[in-house]
């Protein structure tokens, strides 16, 4: 099994550009998440989804959008890149209850906005 796959692994953007971070999982998990990780700040939840067609905001959703058209895919879109979005982004997935919270993470995508 591939688990959770994220692309690209690295990307440099200019201010105002847009891009999509791709995330796909092959474990048939209902729940999927996008986090950003900044030094000393832990991981902050951007958006999450409890199933196809259902998405919800996390702690830090501003400047991002998501969609969940299939169980497998959960892309994260940055519309107008800003330097504050320089971060490492992690996609994760999990089953719903009773093991909800036991997340499987992707390898991460390092984004730099200049």
């Amino acid at each position: 099994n591939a688990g959770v796959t994220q692309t690209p692994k690295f990307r440099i953007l200019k201010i105002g550009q847009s891009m999509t971070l791709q995330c796909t999982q092959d474990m048939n998990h209902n729940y999927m998440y996008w986090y950003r990780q900044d030094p000393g700040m832990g991981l902050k939840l951007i958006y999450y989804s409890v199933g196809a067609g259902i998405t919800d905001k996390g702690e830090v959703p501003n400047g991002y959008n998501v969609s969940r058209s299939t169980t497998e895919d959960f892309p994260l879109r940055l519309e107008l890149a800003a330097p504050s979005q320089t971060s490492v982004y992690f996609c994760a997935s999990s089953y719903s209850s009773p093991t909800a919270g036991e997340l499987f993470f992707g390898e991460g995508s390092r984004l730099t906005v200049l």
Partner: protein
Amino acid sequence: AQSVSQHNHHVILSEAASLELGCNYSYGGTVNLFWYVQYPGQHLQLLLKYFSGDPLVKGIKGFEAEFIKSKFSFNLRKPSVQWSDTAEYFCALYAGNMLTFGGGTRLMVKP
């Protein structure tokens, strides 16, 4: 709203020393608690979890954690650390479909 606090941001230990990392959470209902580990250059991996039952839970690589409900704490322990335990450790709380992380503790183990 739920929150998780890890009070030790950086810890430096020598090999064979004992480890205890603090974690406190804020949430009024039933919780699932986790410790995740991130080795240098890698993604997060589950270290151990608490859902219910015995408040002392054991995880991989000799780690254990104790859930103390009255103190809203879930501290991580290991009797004797190894150089390979050098990593960043994250405490996390699951409630309301969301997993909320603490700020992390960066552990360095000197050989």
